[in-house]
Every structure is written in structure tokens, then in C-alpha cells.
């Protein structure tokens, strides 16, 4: 076995030789992905003993390039499953790894994340879903919300409270929960834009085997932090917005079907971001481009959106130079919601009375209307603007935290929302 350090060239040569010998579009999707698991080329940055090749994550892009060259399909990358994998790799036992990792990569299992609750959104560590030990099982009661793809998921990453006598962050436990059991009920949650991309999940005496707890009671918050960190980082490049290939063949058909299912909840996300790309076209076709007031608003939007892009480029350039992260790296989320809001304002000005309409009666068959009622999500989802500002002020500007009233007493004594279960 060679002990030489892998290089870009060596990795490229190795993967392309392997693909030449093995890739065949006549495979079934799962059948092919099992080969990827055996060879480690599906997740090359994972450990050798768990379907990877121990390669530094920077080589993933090269592997992807070689796959793209021959049109080879990769492992299942979209959805919550990659967050599950990253969390299990970091904290799971061998049992967890054996049971879950391969079926994540092959796409046989889908996952969901059971963190947010009606009573704890920004304050996620305030979860009140109960985990009680009864006999040899954990019994789960409570409610989760904003759960993407819960209706399809086989497994859920669950944060629940197992000890009420200790402080908020100390009493949480993290479980892998079987979603296909009688104690779990999933109901779609209809949003103000008419879509139902998320679910409410109700637990009534749902059961978890004790070995399906990750780490111990009290470690739940730490494990959840790992999941959230990978969510923000895009699970080290493994997780991606899947784009289907248009090639012909059985394996491509199967992949297209998989992607269509996984991406379904996200189809309005471009509208949520404000669709800056549509502004010029719309301003020209409506003639509003000649209105000096609207021109000013369009210009403000373009300046903001260009500057946001350049700020992100500055952050990336500094990172590539190995400089410590500057303030410019912490602003993206907040800036994106400013851009989305200004874009919605501009679309409204451009559209005029037609903005009163929706669906096929409205411009672009409802796309503009969908922007106007989807943008409010951008300043809430994934951390509200207010939470982003707190993070910036505390971590970047080193301003003091507000006095905490909930972290230094038993959680059972902390005032909290009363959630009615239906």
C-alpha cells in the first residue's frame, strides 16, 4: 500500500481509471451506489473503514469533475441525509455507522431533522419534547415543526428533553427515531405562500431503542450543534442542491425521480431570495424602467446585490490566503435577507396593480406573486435576522450577551410557552 501523499494528479488518475473500469449506465441506481460504497469513491473524504478513502475534503471537487466527465452518477447528496451522516460519523457508535451510513449513500433511506418546536424556534435548546425511559425503551411525547420531508423520511434526528432537573442545555438527548411507527404522526404545514414544504410531527408514545441514542443524556445539545454546523457548512461539500442530468438511461431515470422527490419542497426557494435576476426584464417589459423613482429603487437593489457578492468574494479570498475570518464572512445571511426584501419592494413597484393578483391571472404565471409572499421567509428561516444580528454583535463585535435568565436553573423552573397538542 502506497504511503505517498495524494496529489491532485494522483487522485484524478486513480478515480478516472476506476471509473473507466467500473462505470456503466445500465446499472440500477442502488446497485451502482453500492459499488461506490465498496470503492470509497462515493464519499472519498470519509474514513476508509466507512465507505470512504480518507482523502482530504479538498479533493472532492476533482473526484466530482471526473464523475461529470463520464456522466457517472454519484451517491445520494441532497436532503437531510448528509447531515445525518456527518453527525453519525462524528458521534455515532459502530452500530449506528453500520446500520445507517451505507443506506444514506445509496439513497435507500431518507432522513429528517426533528429540532424546532412550536415553543422553541430561535431558542432551540428550549425544546420540551419529552424522552422518558420506560422499561428498556425511550418513550417520546411532544411536537416538532418545520420538518422538511418528514412525510417521506425513514429516520429522524431527534432532539428531546430527557432530564428536567438540570439546566436547559444539559438535559437534552439526541436520538435516531424510526419515523415509520404508530406513535409518529406527520401533518403538512401550509405556509403563507400556499406551499407546504414542511411538516408538523406529533409523537404519542413513540418508541426508541436505547442503543439509538447518540452519546448520552446531557450530550444532546453538543450533538445537535454538530448537525447544525454541517448544515451551515453544506456538510463539507457532500450535501448539494441536486441538479438532474438530462442523459438517457435507467440509472438517470432513477436519479431524476429521486431528485424530483427530494427537491420538491425547495421549488419556491428562488422566489424567497427575491429573484433579482428578473428585475431588469420585468422593468423593461412594463416600461417602468423609465420611471425615475423606480430607477432609484432598482439601482439600490443592484448596488446591494453586487456588494453582497463582492463581500462574499472578499471572505473567500481571505480564507484562501489562510487569513483569519474577518467580519465580512459573518454577514452573508443578513445581507441576503436585505437583498430579498429590496427585490420584493422593487417587484411590487414594477408590477403595480397586477401585484394584486396571483397564479395564472398574474405576471409570469404567478412567479412574481410568489416572490411577494415568499420573501418574508428569508429573514426567518435558518436563523432570524435578529438572531443573526446578535451573533454578529457578540462574536464579531464582542459585545456582551444580555443577562441570561434561563440557563442557570433547572429547566423545569424556566417559564416557557404552553403548547397545546392537537
Amino acid at each position: 500500500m502506497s504511503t505517498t501523499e495524494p496529489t491532485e494528479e494522483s487522485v484524478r488518475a486513480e478515480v478516472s481509471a476506476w471509473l473507466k473500469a467500473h462505470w456503466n449506465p445500465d446499472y440500477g441506481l442502488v446497485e451502482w451506489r453500492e459499488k461506490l460504497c465498496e470503492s470509497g469513491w462515493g464519499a472519498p473524504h470519509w474514513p476508509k473503514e466507512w465507505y470512504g478513502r480518507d482523502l482530504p475534503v479538498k479533493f472532492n471537487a476533482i473526484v466530482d469533475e471526473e464523475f461529470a466527465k463520464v456522466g457517472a452518477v454519484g451517491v445520494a447528496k441532497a436532503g437531510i441525509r448528509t447531515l445525518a451522516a456527518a453527525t453519525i460519523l462524528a458521534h455515532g457508535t459502530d452500530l449506528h455507522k453500520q446500520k445507517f451510513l451505507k443506506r444514506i449513500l445509496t439513497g435507500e433511506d431518507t432522513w429528517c431533522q426533528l429540532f424546532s418546536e412550536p415553543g422553541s424556534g430561535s431558542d432551540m435548546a428550549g425544546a420540551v419534547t419529552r424522552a422518558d425511559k420506560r422499561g428498556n425503551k425511550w418513550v417520546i411525547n411532544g411536537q416538532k415543526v418545520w420538518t422538511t420531508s418528514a412525510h417521506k423520511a425513514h429516520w429522524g434526528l431527534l432532539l428531546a428533553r430527557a432530564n428536567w432537573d438540570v439546566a436547559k442545555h444539559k438535559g437534552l438527548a439526541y436520538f435516531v427515531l424510526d419515523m415509520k411507527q404508530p406513535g409518529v404522526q406527520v401533518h403538512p404545514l401550509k405556509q403563507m405562500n400556499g406551499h407546504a414544504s414542511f411538516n408538523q410531527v406529533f409523537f404519542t408514545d413513540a418508541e426508541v431503542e436505547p442503543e439509538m441514542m447518540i452519546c448520552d443524556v446531557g450530550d444532546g445539545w453538543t450533538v445537535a450543534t454538530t448537525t447544525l454546523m454541517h448544515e451551515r457548512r453544506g456538510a463539507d461539500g457532500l450535501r448539494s442542491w441536486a441538479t438532474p442530468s438530462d442523459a438517457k438511461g435507467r440509472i438517470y431515470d432513477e436519479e431524476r425521480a429521486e431528485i424530483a422527490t427530494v427537491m420538491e419542497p425547495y421549488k419556491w426557494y428562488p422566489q424567497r431570495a427575491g429573484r433579482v435576476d428578473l428585475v431588469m426584464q420585468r422593468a423593461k417589459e412594463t416600461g417602468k424602467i423609465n420611471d425615475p423613482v423606480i430607477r432609484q429603487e432598482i439601482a439600490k437593489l443592484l448596488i446591494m446585490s453586487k456588494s453582497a457578492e463582492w463581500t462574499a468574494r472578499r471572505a473567500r479570498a481571505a480564507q484562501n490566503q489562510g487569513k483569519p475570518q474577518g467580519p465580512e464572512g459573518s454577514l452573508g445571511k443578513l445581507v441576503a435577507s436585505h437583498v430579498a426584501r429590496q427585490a420584493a419592494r422593487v417587484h411590487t413597484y414594477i408590477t403595480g396593480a397586477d401585484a394584486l393578483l396571483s397564479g395564472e391571472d398574474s405576471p409570469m404565471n404567478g412567479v412574481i406573486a410568489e416572490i411577494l409572499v415568499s420573501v418574508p421567509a428569508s429573514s426567518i428561516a435558518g436563523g432570524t435576522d435578529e438572531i443573526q444580528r446578535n451573533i454578529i454583535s457578540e462574536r464579531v463585535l464582542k459585545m456582551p450577551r444580555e443577562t441570561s435568565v434561563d440557563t442557570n436553573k433547572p429547566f423545569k423552573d424556566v417559564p416557557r410557552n404552553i403548547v397545546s397538542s392537537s
Partner: protein
Amino acid sequence: MRFSFSEEQEEFRATVRRALEARSPTKEVRRLMATDAGFEREGWQKLNQELGLTALHIPEAYGGGGFGYSELGIVLEEMGRGLLCAPYFSTAALATTAILNAGTEEQKKALLPGLAEGSVTATLAFAEEGGSSDPASIELAASPSGATWRLDGTKSFVLDGHTADLVVVVARRPGSHGEDGLSLFTVDGNASGLVRRKLKTMDETRKLAHLTFKSVEARLLGSEGAGAAAFAKTMQQALICLANEMVGSAERLREDALEYVKMRMQFGRSIASFQTTKNKAADMLVDVELAKSAAYYAAAALDEGDEDIAALASLAKASAAEACVQTAVHAVQMHGGIGFTWDNDTHLWFKRAKSSEILFGDANEHREKMMQAWKI
């Protein structure tokens, strides 16, 4: 496109910052801004020569440093931060740039070494009554007189115009209109027939003058009637310089306000622990960083000869104007009552923010210019 500064550039910034902190504490700013000249020649020459500031973007062939607008931008950002009282913007960003754009080889060889060395201060006079930067608004008349020219008319809002040794003047051939018939001229600061009056300015750190020309002898800079293009280019470069200066001022305002709220106790706790203060501070950081990105991008684009420079210059100016003024307003607010006093330094930068907002056209004007440059 370059999106980060090199190590050399960062070191250069640190050197300039240290020098300005040592030479131009606010006590010194307050002393100099109260003088008629607005600066002291001897001290300025010494600092300039130590750091090679006016030489920076002059090519080495003319006695300069051969650097670009990114380096000039660094100096201006630091000056916006330190509020140095010196005729730097007028000499380097305006007059030198105009000579580089318009001058003949011979003229550059004659004029630039003195500017590079710092023995000569200079400015560009283009605006007239009303202060517009629109070339069509220029009326000052230039008439040939033997080998030289004679200028008649007025210029106003001339940066350091009352002290400049050399004045570059944008003037027009009598009877011409719009961008036609414009030329650039050089005039001695103490030429006969030139009456210079210092204007009373809201921002005392930025001196402006009103100039009256009565048959003042002038030398043509470059070729007659070809001034519009050189002037337009000079203004684009000056806008990018100003945007970089403004983000320096904005950063200083932001940092000082942050430092103050961390110190200030009310209701038994630091006011920096109140979310309303923290949210404002976070918003200020966003404003300043976005404006920095635009200012840095525009300076780098100048150095790379980007064809989009007219739009980028206006974009950077509009962005910096909004950010700097908004930051100044927040900074006074975060200081509370003391922020409204003369003794507190915040008003020095607040006024600079206001004067920079308006100088060379406000954000509304430049947003429209940007759209037009993009043919929107």
C-alpha cells in the same frame, strides 16, 4: 479581479495608519481645521516625503512611486479614518490624476515631479456657482492669447483652491456647448487677475474656495477642445478615491461608537448589552462592509483597466455615501447627548460624512449615472 489585499499592501496600510495616528490626533485636526489654510505646509511636506504619498500613483518616469489606485485607495481610506488636514485629495486624487489623463508627455515631465515630491500643492477647479460636476454646466471662458490663453469667469467649491500652488481649470471655448469645446488649463495659484476667497464650510476639515478669473494667464493642458474625456475620466477616478476615503471615515465612526457603548453604563449595565444597541451595531457593520467591498472592487477595477469603470465609480460613490452618512447618524445616536457636543469628536466625522456625501454628486445622482452607464 483581486478580492483581498496583498501582504505588502496590508503593511503599507499599517505604516500609513501609524503615521497618521502619531501626526494627526484629533487635537491636531481641531487646531489645523481652525486655521485659514487648513493645513501646515512644513509638517505636511515632511509626512508626505516620509511616506511617498503624493508620489504614489505617479509613474516612476515622472518621479512617482508607480503604484495604482488600490494603493491610493488605501491611503485615502486611512485619511478618511484619521481625518488628516492636508491638501492630499486635491493634489493627488484630483490635480495629479487630471494631468496624467490630459497632459502631453512634456507637460507631465514638467509638472508631475514637483507634485510627486510634494513641493507643489495643486487642485482641480471644475464646478461653478451651484457646484455641479456636470461638464455642460461649465461656463468659464478660455480665449487664445499668443502662445498662452486667458481665462474669464468663476469657479467655486474648489477643494483647497485658496492655497493650491497650481490650479488645473476646466474651461470652455466661448460659444461651445455641452461636452464640446472643453479644455483643461493650468494656472498659477498666485496668477495676476485670479482672486481666491476661502468659503466658510460646514466640514471645517475640508476647505473649499471660490475663484474669480479676470483675464488670467493659463497654459493649455493637452489638446484644445479635448477636455471632456479627460475630465470625465478624472471624475471617475476621483469618485473611487472619495469612496475609499468615505469607507475609512465610516469605519472610524463605527469603531468609536462601538468602543463608547461598551464603556457606557446605564441602568446598572453596559449599554452594549442591550439588544437595540447590538442590533444597530450589527447593521452598521453590514453597511460599512458592503460599502468597503464596492470601494475596493472599484479601485481594483481601475487598476485592471475594467471597461465598466464609469458605472463602478458611481456605484462605489453611491454606496459609500449612504453607508457613511447612515453610520455617522447612528454614531451620534449611540453616543447620546455627549455625541451632540462640540468637545466630542464624533461631529468631526459626521461633518466629513455629510460633505463627502454631497461632494461630486449625491447618491441619487450617482445611482442614476450608474444605470445610464449600464445603458439601463
